[in-house]
């Protein structure tokens, strides 16, 4: 939601399971996106709460919210309130860890979601910034800044000339309007993460086309929370 474009449905909403937009709805959204980012079956999950979330997660049901998100349940779904039982039935073990003091740079309402499955591991750090709005700030060691308002494609690639141009070209050829492109890299010539936000849902065929590019190691598609 861009500055100055707050509308009636931003104020009159979201529909959510209480009690706290930041401690319940926002946490569910972080976990939901973390799950969407991981294209494997999940065998085990760990959610670490920092700051205010660590101190108040039981009273706010943040644990239920996190588990709900991992099960693909969004903040407006009544199943959120009994997500712990659903996870048990589905055989998904989720460990909840409160960390009262987080690193200085962490937002006061931070959740870290770690997932294991199919021999893979993923770690996503999200901040719940108020009113149910969130930001994913770190994805598998890469700094990111995703708010779930747009469809996003995360392209993990070897850092070399021309990757941004090729990815943009493929999207433009299929008439996707690119809202933003941000490139993060660990070191020059090392791995880099390209985060592309687009208007409109991206079909699997395009994601596959990107994945086939020689410098590309992994492509993760994150649908928007609105879709």
């Amino acid at each position, binding site marked *: 939601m861009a500055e*100055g*474009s*707050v*509308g*009636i*449905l*931003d*104020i*009159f*909403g*979201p*529909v*959510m*399971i*209480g*009690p*706290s*937009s930041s*401690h*319940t*709805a926002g946490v569910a959204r972080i976990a939901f996106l973390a799950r969407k980012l991981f294209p494997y079956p999940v065998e085990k999950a760990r959610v670490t709460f920092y700051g*205010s979330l660590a*101190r*108040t997660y*039981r*009273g*706010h*049901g943040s644990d*239920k919210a996190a588990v709900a998100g991992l099960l693909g349940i969004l903040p*407006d779904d*009544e199943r959120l*309130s009994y997500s712990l039982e659903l996870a048990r039935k589905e055989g998904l073990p989720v460990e909840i860890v409160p960390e009262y003091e987080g690193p200085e740079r962490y937002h006061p309402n931070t959740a870290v979601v770690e997932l294991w499955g199919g021999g893979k591991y993923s770690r996503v750090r999200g901040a719940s910034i*108020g*009113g*149910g709005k969130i930001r994913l700030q770190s994805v598998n060691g890469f700094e990111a800044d995703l708010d779930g308002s747009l469809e996003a494609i995360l392209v993990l690639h070897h850092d070399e000339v021309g990757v941004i141009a090729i990815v943009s070209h493929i999207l433009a050829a299929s008439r996707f309007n690119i809202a933003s492109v941000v490139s993060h890299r660990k070191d020059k010539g090392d791995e880099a993460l390209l985060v592309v936000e687009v208007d409109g849902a991206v079909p699997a065929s395009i994601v596959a086309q990107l994945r086939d590019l020689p410098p590309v190691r992994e492509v993760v598609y994150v649908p928007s929370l609105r879709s």
Partner: protein
Amino acid sequence: MNWKFSTADELLARVSESGLGFADYLVARDAFYSGRTVDEVRAEVAHRIRVSRAALDRGTAEPQVSFSGMTRGGAVLLGASTGWPVDDEFFRMALTYALAINEVNACGGRIIAFPTAGSCGIVPGVLWAWRDARASDLGPESIAFQDAFIMASAVGILIAARATLAGAAGGCQAECGAAGAMAAAGLATLLGADAATALDAAALSLKNSLGLACDPVAGLVEVPCTKRNAFLAANAITAVSLSRAGIRSVIPFDEVVGAMKSIGDAMPASVRESAEGGLAKTATGMSFWEKIR
């Protein structure tokens, strides 16, 4: 069409330029930014009004008891009370409904944040009470009822644009205080006020909640939040009562929002949702930390 505004004066000017009615301009603006049609935006407004009703019905029918034990079916008690000093059906319903919806929130039920979860009972509590007590022909599908919720939302948009709707940034004046102003504007609209008059009613309500602390016990959205929903419903009704008598706010709405921003900036962090001051630091308040571990 120009969709940009940050003050009430600008909004009223944009509406006037658009040739649309006040609510229709805002619906068209939401449609423009979200890529939906105006009919889809209206349908979503109706859906959200229905969600607020479901929460209200739940909170008035079943005693809501929370994990912390601080919420214990207050709305059911209030609805059954025979001890009302002000025995008016609308007033009784407004207080009961506002409390009921927010108790459902405190207990992890399904609600619609308006503008936040901790203040979600105030606007629907007041508007549904008016409908139930005085205007049974209204409902989620009626344009007049939707327009009242949209007017309330407009007040929220204006406060978000120049101040804040987050207790962590501006204290409770930004949550329940804002919702009280929104409810005043919505109720004034239901009673036939034009947009400028409804915004003035919002100013009257907002002035009376400037400086409200956000000092939640054990950091939970519960004490003082749930009962404050009933109090701010009364605040909104008082504002509309004054407004209907022709009493206007000496300080215009936009300047009240500016004052709210400056007061929020001056508030210490201990009373901005940190649970490190005020009621949260009382002996009884502190005892709840242990109970929720």
